[in-house]
């Protein structure tokens, strides 16, 4: 007979090797190319910002959990993802203390207040950014031209979207960024030489990261495709340049890394499709009519609000039989 007490568990008694930290780690890996390129473009300042947001995100989570005497959860690495993503969607020149404050808000208010990993209804990193944008609108809309690793004082510029918003034509934008024509502007935007948030510059590198996550099965295609597709379609419908619109700002970055955030996107495929389309549409509407030149942050946050309802758009279950309504006895039958 067995020597000691047996483990009594409920089936299944076998588990996958894939764990939460592993998934988070793959997101971090997917973000490395974009981060490194960001540091290459904006230098030491960018590196410092990344470190500060990541560290304060982790520290906030750790300390908050200690405070409420709950289990420490920094081991799941999700705070690192949040901190890293926050840095990547902020202007490179954001003062470090603001970055720290945003990370604190993201982790404590947007995530831990709701119960931590998976329970937060709003994307923490985006909430952190929106908080900073509301609180310090001047600083969070101050952009710099890529200046490489040189420690030279960066000069303020406008982003391509801000230029367009101020009425510039695409050719002007091209000139502004030193491209010869619109075609080469597209190329330049795709490869990533322009002003903008720290991590969103190079569409190519963001795509590489995103495809890596797709290949690993960490994210699914529905959300990114519907976000980018609908942004493309609606810009075209509203008479804007669709290619320019998806190559600038955070559309691609948001589509792959932020709209796919597990906790805040709908779980069901149909819900995800509507979610993505909504993000694309809102992004374009805010860009065209709204008070901001760029709308991805708010578009995702607004669609986060709809997530509980989108989750009701469930897949038809196996062998679904539509419930038969008790048929009203027809008149003839009564006769």
């Amino acid at each position: 007979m067995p020597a000691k007490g047996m483990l009594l568990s409920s089936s299944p008694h076998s588990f996958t090797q894939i764990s939460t930290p592993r998934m988070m780690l793959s997101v971090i890996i997917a973000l490395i190319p974009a981060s490194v390129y960001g540091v290459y473009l904006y230098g030491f300042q960018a590196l410092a910002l990344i470190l500060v947001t990541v560290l304060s995100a982790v520290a906030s989570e750790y300390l908050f959990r200690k405070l409420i005497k709950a289990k420490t959860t920094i081991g799941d690495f999700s705070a690192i993802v949040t901190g890293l993503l926050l840095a990547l969607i902020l202007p490179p020149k954001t003062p470090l203390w603001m970055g720290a404050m945003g990370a604190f808000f993201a982790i404590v208010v947007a995530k831990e207040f709701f119960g931590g990993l998976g329970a937060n209804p709003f994307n923490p990193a985006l909430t952190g950014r929106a908080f900073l944008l509301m609180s310090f609108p001047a600083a969070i809309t101050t952009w710099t031209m890529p200046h490489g690793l040189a420690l030279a004082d960066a000069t303020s510029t406008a982003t391509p979207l801000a230029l367009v918003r101020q009425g510039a034509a695409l050719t002007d934008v091209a000139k502004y960024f030193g491209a010869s024509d619109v075609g080469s502007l597209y190329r330049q935007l795709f490869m990533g030489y322009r002003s903008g948030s720290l991590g969103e510059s190079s569409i190519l590198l963001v795509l590489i990261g995103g495809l890596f996550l797709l290949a690993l099965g960490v994210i699914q295609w529905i959300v990114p495709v519907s976000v980018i597709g609908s942004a493309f379609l609606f810009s075209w419908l509203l008479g804007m340049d669709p290619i320019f619109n998806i190559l600038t700002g955070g559309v691609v970055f948001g589509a792959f890394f932020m709209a796919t955030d597990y906790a805040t996107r709908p779980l069901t495929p149909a819900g995800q499709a509507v979610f993505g389309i909504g993000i694309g549409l809102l992004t374009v509407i805010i860009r065209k009519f709204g008070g901001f030149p760029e709308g991805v942050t708010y578009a995702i946050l607004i669609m986060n609000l709809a997530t509980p309802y989108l989750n009701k758009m469930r897949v038809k279950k196996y062998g679904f039989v539509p419930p038969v309504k008790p048929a009203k006895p027809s008149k003839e039958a009564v006769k």
Partner: protein
Amino acid sequence: MKSLWKTFKQGIIYENPLLMLMIGLCSALAVTSSVSNGIGMGLAMTFVLLFSEIVISLFRKVIPNSARIPIFIIIIAAFTTMVDLVMKAYFPELSKSMGVFIPLIVVNCIIMGRVEAFASKQSFLPVVFDSLGMGLGYTWVLVAIAAFREILGNGTFAGIQVMPGNFQPILFFILPPGGFLVFGLLTSFNIWLKNRMAKSEKAKERA
């Protein structure tokens, strides 16, 4: 006297309308982007509460039960209008910045609640203490919220610069979402306080 004092204290802490009873919230959040607004609203509210309660308590015997609600409304509305007129006449700035919220005192759940639950059943003195207690309870919470929001969000307290010059105001706090957040945290603090009080009371009982 002791019971009067207790009535007074009830409103300030134990049955604080905003924190404990969670009623009359709208004005509390809307006007607290600055301390002076908070004080103004608190006083206006206390005034209406005090006089409505007094009048209703005095007339409670002649008010027929079936018509009491409309009559209460009339009385409250009358006092609210007076406050509104007086503010418009002598404090135009304050009146403007509080906008529609002064007239809205009339539907403030606190007043109707107290009037029904207390004034229509009690005599003059307790009514005075109750309304003052409730009013004070309301006002201090308003000022507390306002102070927090104004200092962090604007760097000032009642219009006076209190934060060092290089302080960057965190605009979030004077914007509406900031109001909700601050109030949420305040209620949380209060629930904690309430639990503690309940615990210590129980401990007392046991002893």
